[in-house]
């Protein structure tokens, strides 16, 4: 037998506990901003989307870099051309995905009779701005984590996904309130 439940718990618990500590920090920001979120529930709809998209993009980028490093068509250099292509493509895909989803969320919320308090243009600027900032940071984090873990002899496939989703969840919420402040909604 390969698997035992005790080993599964032992291997996963430490990293999970670290992730949970950081996620609780994100949760405390939400609690602090609760008053505002109640007035603009459309941002509550957006939070899982903002976080989910960057997590997916970062994980796919990390998995692609891991395969490239394992097979050898990506080298451990910050000047690697293949890595640059993957990085830029991820950011471009982030831009398209966040743009499409921002418009969709707005109209789904309108159809769902949600209290809006914000116009389409302002909403798209906030979500797209948050998303773009997030996807740039997450893609860089993904590259750094993949390269660093590969250099240390760890498997990037195991490392990138938890790191990228945790950083994405926390920074997603931080950037969202930053953009809300910059656009001057609250």
């Amino acid at each position, binding site marked *: 037998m390969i698997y035992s439940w*005790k080993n599964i718990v032992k291997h996963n618990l430490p990293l999970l*506990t670290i992730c949970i500590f950081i996620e*609780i920090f994100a*949760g405390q920001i939400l*609690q602090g901003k609760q008053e505002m979120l109640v007035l603009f529930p*459309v941002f509550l709809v957006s939070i899982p*989307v903002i976080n989910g998209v960057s*997590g997916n993009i970062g994980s796919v980028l990390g998995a692609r870099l891991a395969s490239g490093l394992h097979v050898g068509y990506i080298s451990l250099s910050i000047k690697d051309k293949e890595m640059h292509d993957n990085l830029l493509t991820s950011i471009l895909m982030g831009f398209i*995905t966040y743009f499409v989803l921002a418009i969709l969320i707005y109209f789904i919320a309108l159809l769902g009779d949600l209290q809006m308090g914000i116009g389409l243009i302002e909403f798209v600027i906030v979500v797209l701005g948050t998303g773009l900032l997030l996807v740039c940071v997450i893609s860089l984090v993904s590259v750094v984590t993949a390269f660093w873990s590969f250099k240390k002899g760890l498997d990037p496939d195991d490392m990138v996904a938890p790191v990228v989703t945790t950083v994405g969840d926390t920074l997603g919420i931080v950037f969202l309130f930053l953009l809300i402040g910059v656009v001057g909604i609250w």
Partner: protein
Amino acid sequence: MFAKEMVKQSLPLFILCGLGAVFAGSTFAGMTSIFQEIPGLIVVIPAIIALRGNISTAFGSRLGSAYHLGVIDAENLWNEELRQNIMGSLVLSFLVSIIVGVLAYVTSLLLNVQPDPVKLITIVLLAGIISGVILTLLTIIIIYLVFRRGYDPDNITGPALATFGDIVTMFCIFGSAVLMEAIL
């Protein structure tokens, strides 16, 4: 040029998963009044979604490796390897849910919010275990279908479980919060 195929294969999936996340978000937005009634509850949302995502995608990816190693397949699905994996995931869900509840309570106290510790920890534990059981069953069903069709589980389970996981977990937190608010 590998980057081109990445756009072709991944972009539709990103947008589709994003739409799935809108469901989770709508549940989140529907909970505003219960967040005001139960202080500290909103704190656990990112953590419990992350714990569910991490545990179930790791579960899915282990089953993917088990398939590639030849210890599990469509004809021989319900065996000791699978049972150990299920047990491991459920024990992790239980332990980490307790950590989430306690951390949310302690950090709230530090920030001068006074949650009800019993209520908060019970809600998190209930939501963690129920969503754990549902997601485990869902993983087994997805893995079974993937095996039957001869796909590579590694390409499917990650995004599928992350998206379903968010939706199921939000519903479970919502349900547990309403239930505990009624009982306690």
